[in-house]
């Protein structure tokens, strides 16, 4: 299979943010906690007595403080506004309670209080902050949603729901928590938005295949919330084969179930980057990328996906100037895109390298990759690079190039349709930039791609392919494209093709285009013929009169002027000068016609002085004497 490699592209398509955020590594005296909602690492030294350091990628929210060691910490998290710190401890008394400490400007105010869950015998599995001053305790008895009043050092129950739960998974981006009941055979999502607990539709699982905590992730992807479940093949459940990831829609997603085929077995982790689902596989040290927005065959509301390109490792990261072990067993991957190495004390974000997607492809995959890049923020640069390379190698990549054009134009078409619908319906919905991160207009195509290839051997074919794609998507050809097309076709000796295209309206109908064609009329009379037709269709009657006059066709010009009602305003001098070139018969006829016009308009047949017709009056007299 013929390979395609984007020049100067990165060998990797995923990298870790450089430099990593460093923190004190896990040790007997130091405990490390991560809050994925705020993206912060808490390093607690000696239970907090010798200090707690809070680190995140956002330095303005980093802080350090000391606190009393009241027992081993299970979970520690700031509220979204960083004004309240909540700590869950593992204490002997087993009272299901959480401690709170108020903060001001990231400094503890020494105001501390605690709250006990309403189910006294329950075990708190964890807590989450759905919004400022609201906290939810997830217990094995159910969920309790509370409001925090930091000034009063009090909490008040807003709502609670009973549900027998073994573990849970939380998605901070959508405020949805999935509770696992019945030993992982039942997954029940709840929404904690708008100070309320809303029970959502439970997820249908195969009762014979209960799931375990490490195989379930609640993620936000493509403006929908999904429950990602890893389904491993195992001898006990008589299901064989490699692991699949099943994305079950919780909210949104049009109720479509997506199955991602990894083709691998073993331990996996999940990241979400720019609406792409990344599956990290530890033993092969590769990461696969899935795009659930890609076109896929749907069968009974189920869509199957393969990785966009075959799996590649993440770009090796440097820590203290040395390559650090990748896919290490000390890594913990948090959604959406955090990776922590607790042993090294590093916090990274995973980044997508767009060009890496086009590093090693079979020819057939190029359009698919461009399609994926069109759905990525900032994907346009790589698309332009791919396009430029394809155009340069158009002799071997013409088919792929036209399919890439189709990808680009179908996205543009969809956007344009939505814009039109929005304008006609008069709705103001700001969604455009999200759904269409990359739009490549005709102007963009000209300035970023076509113009740079003025000397390429196959530009005629490239331009034709682009026009063909525009036509297929029912898009009107705009001025820059029409201009570049005309120039290319004329300079490459393909004026026959230009005429066929114009004749079929493939270049649009524009006055500028007509003028361009007209100027070609000197060496290609057929172009001028088409230009006049086009002007006629555009109802550019005044221009037609001008053209005919410049061709020394005064009789037709007068006729055309009469038809569109500008005869009265036509300068006599111009008409007579053209008529003189054309011949005596035409001159006499037009001279008489102009005299009649003068008579009708001014009551006298004579020309005015300002019309500067003296030489023609003389010429007329001369003609009449001769005859």
């Amino acid at each position, binding site marked *: 299979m013929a390979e395609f490699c984007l020049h100067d592209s990165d060998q990797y398509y995923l990298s870790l943010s450089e430099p990593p955020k460093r923190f004190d590594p896990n040790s007997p005296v130091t405990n490390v906690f991560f809050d994925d909602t705020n993206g912060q690492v808490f390093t607690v030294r000696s239970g907090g007595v010798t200090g707690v350091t809070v680190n995140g990628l956002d330095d303005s929210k980093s802080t350090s403080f000391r606190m009393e060691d009241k027992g081993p910490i299970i979970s520690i998290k700031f509220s979204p506004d960083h004004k309240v710190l909540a700590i869950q401890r593992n204490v002997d008394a087993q009272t299901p309670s959480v401690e709170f400490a108020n903060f001001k400007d990231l400094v503890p105010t020494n105001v501390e209080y605690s709250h006990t869950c309403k189910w006294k015998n329950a075990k708190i599995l964890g807590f989450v902050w759905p919004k400022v001053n609201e906290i939810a305790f997830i217990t094995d008895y159910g969920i309790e949603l509370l409001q925090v009043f930091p000034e009063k050092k009090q909490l008040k129950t807003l709502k609670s729901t009973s549900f027998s739960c073994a573990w849970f998974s939380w998605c901070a981006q959508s405020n949805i928590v999935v509770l696992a009941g019945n030993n992982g055979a039942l997954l029940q999502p709840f929404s904690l938005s708008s100070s309320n607990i809303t029970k959502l539709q439970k997820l249908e699982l195969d009762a014979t295949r209960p799931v375990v905590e490490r195989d379930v992730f609640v993620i936000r992807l493509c403006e929908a919330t999904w429950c990602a479940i890893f389904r491993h093949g195992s001898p006990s459940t008589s299901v064989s084969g490699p692991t699949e990831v099943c994305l079950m829609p919780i909210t949104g997603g049009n109720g479509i179930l997506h199955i991602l085929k990894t083709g691998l077995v073993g331990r996996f982790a999940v990241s979400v980057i720019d609406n792409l689902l990344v599956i990290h596989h530890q033993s092969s040290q590769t990461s696969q990328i899935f795009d659930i927005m890609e076109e896929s065959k749907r069968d009974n509301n189920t869509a199957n996906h393969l990785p966009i390109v075959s799996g590649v490792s993440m770009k090796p990261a440097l820590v203290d100037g040395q390559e650090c072990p990748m896919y290490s067993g000390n890594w913990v991957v948090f959604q959406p895109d955090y990776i922590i190495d607790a042993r090294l004390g590093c916090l990274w974000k995973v980044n997508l390298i767009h060009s890496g997607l086009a590093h090693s492809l079979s020819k057939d995959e190029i359009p698919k990759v461009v399609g994926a890049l069109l759905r990525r923020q900032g994907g346009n640069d790589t698309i332009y690079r791919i396009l430029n390379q394809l155009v340069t190698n*158009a*002799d071997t990549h*013409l*088919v792929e190039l*036209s399919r890439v054009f189709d990808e680009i134009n179908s996205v543009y078409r969809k956007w344009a349709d939505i814009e039109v619908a929005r304008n006609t319906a008069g709705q103001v919905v700001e969604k455009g930039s999200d759904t269409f991160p990359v739009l490549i207009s005709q102007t963009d195509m000209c300035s970023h791609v076509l113009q740079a290839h003025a000397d390429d051997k*196959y530009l*005629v*074919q490239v331009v*034709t*392919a682009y*026009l*063909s794609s525009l*036509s*297929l998507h029912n898009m009107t050809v705009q001025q820059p494209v029409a201009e570049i097309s005309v120039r290319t076709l004329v300079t490459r*000796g*393909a004026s*026959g*093709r230009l*005429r*066929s295209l114009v004749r*079929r*309206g*493939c270049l649009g109908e524009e006055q500028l285009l007509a003028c361009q064609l007209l100027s070609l009329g000197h060496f290609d*009379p*057929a172009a001028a*013929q088409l230009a*006049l*037709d086009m*002007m*006629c*269709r555009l109802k550019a009657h005044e221009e*037609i009169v001008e053209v*005919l006059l410049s061709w020394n*066709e005064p009789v*037709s010009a007068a*006729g*055309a002027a*009469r*038809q569109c009602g500008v005869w009265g305003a036509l300068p006599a001098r111009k008409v007579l000068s053209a008529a003189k070139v054309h011949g005596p018969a035409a001159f006499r006829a037009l001279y008489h016609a102009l005299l009649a016009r003068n008579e009708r308009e001014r009551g006298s047949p004579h020309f005015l002085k300002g019309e500067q017709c003296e030489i023609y009056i003389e010429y007329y007299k001369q003609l009449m004497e001769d005859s």
Partner: protein
Amino acid sequence: MIDIINKIDSFFIFNSNFGPREGDELKRILYFYPGQVNSDIQKTQVGLCEAVVKFMTTFSSAPCEALQTQSKRYIFYQPERNFWMVLVICIPYATKLPGDIKDAVEPAIMYDFMISSYKMFRMFMGLFREILPEDTYAICEKFFTPYISSRNIRNDLSNVIQGINYLPLEKNTFFKVICFIDLLEVNYPDFKCISFLYNDQLIWNGLCKDDMLTLYQYLIHNLLPKQVEKEIQGGAVTAAERHGRFISPPEGIHSEDDLKKIIKVYLIREDDNEAKAYYLVIYRTLSATVSFTVDENTNLDLSTFRSLDTFIGPKLSTIASSIGEQCTMHALVNAQITPTDHKFLYFNKLNLALKTSMPSNSLNPSTAVSPEVLNIIAEVHNDHKSLGKYGEIIIKTPDEYWITGKSSNDREFYVVMQKNANLKEIADEVKRICEMQMKGIFFYPM
């Protein structure tokens, strides 16, 4: 019906320089039709023409065009210096009543016939002067005899003006065609696509317009009818044929020997300045015919043709069927429009596009237009002065035919009506037809 075969008295080509001495007169005659005429009569005929042509140079530097006697009309054409082609036509001998001119053949039609025969000769055989004198006789015999007997000009408007019937394709289908051509040329740089036909309608043309006309005529008059006949006789189309085949040479290209049979043509391609020799390769699938030129210095090899066949076959049949679908749809739409009883003919000098309301199907020639009308149209068409660059002419024949000719912007438009009406009514009617049929085309206002 203009029955050329019966009207042609003789047709010959001579070059006085080929046998300058007395007694060598026969050498001067490169070709004589009909061949069975005895050599003395041939010599007399040619001698007369030589004399006339020579004599006329005294009066004008322009070559002599025609000579009319009581029973014959001689039409002269000098395609290359000293090479003369002469067509002799019988004209009705008996003096007829004035006005009864039905049988007279418009000389312009015959003149066109001769020119196109020369162009065809030049395309397939090259210039007269570049052929060795001793070979000329055999080559002319080989070319002209079958040509004359195969050409039958029927009583049809499309024969009065020699043009090309273009297929009006919707733009997306047209793009499919040119993208296919691009892909092919990019993958097989030696093969340059010069024409794409669907049935007898042209879609793509990569030649200058004159060569295209000649090639087009060769395809639709000579090559394709035989192929179509073969396809019909073959009954069920075999799978191999559905995927297409090379039709020139007519038996296809299957062996090294077949490669030697590929004919050569002398053409000006769109990007050339002068005629060059090329191999002509023609491929056909379903109703689509594609012709290619290959530089004569290229080494032809069988594997290239095999790979070309597998490359073109499936793609072309997809395109052909989508064109077919579009044509069917077009025909359905047209069928709903009530047919009009007037006839029109449109001709664009710049691309030789010819469009007519009259059936141009070679199987059932139209009998609706009388030869007289055709002659008038031919006359108007050839007499550039009568219409000029733009103008309009309305002619009424004694049997109530109204013939309107319009010329504008290098286009001609003729309407034929048979009805009892006055000049104004006819003019208005023509205007209406013109607006209806020629929508979006600019006619010089009068």
